[in-house]
Each structure stands twice: as structure tokens, then as C-alpha cells.
């Protein structure tokens, strides 16, 4: 699942559960997940680097930080 598809699903589910206020948090999490997936140190079955392998994983935006 791409980050974009995951985010759409997560927001939809949160709204269904009566938690629309989760949306901005999930969007911030999506940026962090995107950064994680495109980090150069990821392994990929093709042997390519992760940053080349899954351009659909990238969500543009400012830094990925969302601390606890």
C-alpha cells in the first residue's frame, strides 16, 4: 500500500469512527512514514535503493517530525 492510499484509508476510517480530529495527526504521520520509506538505507527485493523503488511513497511537505 502506498503512503497516499494508506493516508486516504486511515482518514476515512478515523472519520467513520467519529475521530475527524485525527486527520492532521495522520497527515503528519504520513510525512514521517514517507521519509521512512524513502530513506536510502531501506532494503528492497530488487536490490535498488528504496528512494528509487517507490516514488508513490513520497508525500511532499516539511520535515517528518511529529514527536510524542
Amino acid at each position, binding site marked *: *500500500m502506498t503512503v497516499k492510499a*494508506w493516508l486516504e484509508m*486511515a482518514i476515512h*476510517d*478515523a472519520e467513520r469512527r467519529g*475521530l475527524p*480530529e*485525527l486527520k492532521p*495527526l*495522520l497527515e503528519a*504521520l504520513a510525512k*514521517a*512514514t514517507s*521519509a*521512512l*520509506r524513502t*530513506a536510502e*538505507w*531501506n*532494503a528492497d527485493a530488487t536490490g535498488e535503493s528504496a528512494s528509487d523503488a517507490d516514488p508513490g511513497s513520497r508525500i511532499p511537505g516539511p*520535515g*517528518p*517530525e*511529529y*514527536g*510524542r
Partner: protein
Amino acid sequence: MAAEPQTIRELSRALKARQTTAEAVVDGCLQRIAERNPTLNAFITVFGDDAREQAHDADREIAAGRHRGPLHGVPISLKDLFDVRGAVTTAASRVRQSHVADRDATAVAMLRQAGAVIVGKTNLHEFALGTTNEESAFGPARHPLDPSRSPGGSSGGSAAAVADGMCFASIGSDTGGSIRIPAAACGLVGLKPTYGELPTDGVVPLSPTLDHIGPICRSVEDAAIIYDTLRGDRRFLDVARGGHADAAHDSRPLRLAIPRHYFLSTLDAQVAAGFETACERLRESGATLTDVSVPHAGDIAAIYLHIVLSEAAAYHATSLERRPEDYTPNVRLRLEMGRYILGEDYARALRGRELIRREIDAALEGVDGLFLPALAIPAPKIGVPTVRIGGADEPVRNIMLRCTQAFNVSGHPAVALPCGATTEALPIGAQIVGPYGDTTGLLRVAAAVEAAFTAPVAASETYRGPGRSR
């Protein structure tokens, strides 16, 4: 007339020499709690009668020549994540209001065995999921020097209690910085040992692969005393026989490395200046300071987030379904966020953790420790969500974790200690990180750094040593 003891070491000597009694000291702490807790909200539970009884027993044993060691008769508090038999472990949440512990946490049992007097349980950010202590079912803990400010968190009540003289030390937990952040905010020493060294059973978890426990106290030596007590090690314990010979760093000049990239790139201007002054003090003392890099430090926040939220969500999922209204709103939302993280992304974060661990190992090669700030900002105002740094608004939560969470991800031991103050007299904290598995070595280095910071200075300098801020 001798000055009142400020540290565990000083108090232990006074108790053993019968210059004071545990009952008198505990009474003084309980009186301080009664006076100041309505303002600071540091304690959730106070064990007044039990503490007096423990102190009475300690005095009787010491008088009979049975001095157990440096914690005997010393008043200590516990973050309210630690089980104490017969007491509610609230975790600062209504979710836990009916939980009564049927046994002491292992760490609590070890403190009791050492003769420590448990005076009470301290406030925290609900379930330790936050850095400011604002979100607590019992209301926010407040900073002793300025009650409009946060004492840091999540162990905020612990730091406020120690800094304000309500106890001599507190045992906290640290998942992303929750011991070191409040220690730095309040001008104290806070130790996060190597991952897995100290027992966490009987402690409410946040993220089991990131959770650590450790002391918040007024000197590195006190941190060493508590660390060794909780480890069942006697190396630092024999205070009465002339202090901590093992605690001293050897005479070789310190070699410290500063990871400037990422860790020092977003600092409050006064914190940055205070840290550079501390570096200069170390150089004057003969230390060698070099720059070093953790190449993928920019990935740490994302790695940390995916681990901590996934693991916290696993622990809280059932309660989130059954009694969501019993969480504070923002803690509930952050926990709910963790429930959406995919397994593949948690696995990526675990791979990233190994990379960060190796890079920190590499950064430590050839030096005694890493040297960096413990907290990028001074204690923030309560209720303020962002701070302005370098022309940009930074979320308080993110910026408070920036210097500490890496070493929860990697498991390396780290200690925060005071290194200066702002123009408003708010403490500035430095942090030293040691080789994995060598917390004792880290404490030796920290003792040497503390000595360099507390050496006589020119009158214009603002540093006040730990325990001397009141």
C-alpha cells in the same frame, strides 16, 4: 554550623554521623510538599504516615549500627508509573483510577531494601506520552522557578519535586527523553542508563523497546548511587568509607565529540550560547572537543515515532475501545494515531534503529563520550504549542525531543546535567552519551564534566551547580 545537606551523599554522611535524623529530614520534605504542592502539583500521592514510619525505622537501625548504605533514610519519590504495593498506580490517567498494585515494582523493592524512604508518587504527562506534563488527569505539574512554565516531562513532577526540595531524588522513566528533558529544564542531573540495565517490571510501559528507568537527582554522584542500587551493584555505594574512588575519571584529559549536525542545528539562542560557554569551560579544563557526525540523524524522529506509537498502541488498544473518554483528548489522539501504523513501517523503523545504533557507536570511537545539549529550549510556558527558533515556529513537543530521542532509539546510556542558565535564570542542560553497555564509564566522564562546570568561575558567569538553584 554545617550547611544543610543538598545531595544524597551529604545527607547520608550526616545521617550516619547522627548529625541529623531521617525523621527530621523526612518531616522537612513533607512540610515542603504541604507548602508547595498546591502550587507546583508535583505529587499525586504522598505517603506521609508511611514515610514517617520508614524514617523512624531507619533512625533506629542506624542508631543500632546497622547502616545499610547511602540511601538509608533518604527521602525519594517515584514517578507514578511505578507500582507500590497497596497504592494506585495512576499513570496520571483516569484509565487507571481503580488499579491498586498488589506488589512493589522491582525497582521500588530494591530502593526499600537499600533503606530509602518513599515519600510519594509524582505527577507526569499521562502515560508518559508527552514532554510537558500538561496533559495529566491531575492537572499540569509546574516549574519551581516559574509556575507559569512546564518543568518538562514526562517525569515533570519528579523533577519539580527534587528541584524544590520535596525529596532528594526521584525515579523516573525515559522513552524519548522523559528523565533528561525535565532534569535539564529544572537544573538537575538525570540518568538514562543503557537499555535493559535496570528493571522495568512493575512500571507502566509506554514503548517496551524504548523504555528505560533512572534517577533524577542533584549530582552525578547521586545518580551513580541510585544506578548502582537499582542494578544491585556496590561499586558506588560505600559513601561512608571515603567516597567514590571508582567514580573518578582517570587523570587523562577528557575527549568529547560534539554531533553538531542535526542535534545543534535548531537551538534556542540562549541555549546555544550556554552550551558553547560550557564547551569553553571544558576546553579550559583540558578537555579535547571535536566535531562528529551521525549521518542519518535526520531520520531519527521518523524512526522513533513509528516505534513508540506502534508499541504504545498495542498496550492501549483495548482501553481505547472500552473507555476512550478516560484519556486526556490529545493523548488519546496520539495513541489512536499509532493504531494506523502498518507492520511494514514498524519493521522499517526497526531496521533504521540498527543503523542509528551503528552510527552512534562509530561516533563514539576514540572519544570518552558525545557532548550535546539535553534540551533545545529553556522550560516552555504551559499551554504554548510552538516556540520561535531561527525565525521559524517549532512545535514544542518535537523540539523538546530533538536532542534525546536518538539515544532511546539506540539504547546508549546518556546523562543530562546543568551547564548554565538563561538571562531569566532558567536552567540550561548539557548531555553526555557513553558507549553502549558502559553506564558506569559514562558516569565517570559525567563526574569529570560536572567538576569542570562547578570549578570556581568569574563572577560574571551564571552557572549554579545542581542542587544550588533554590
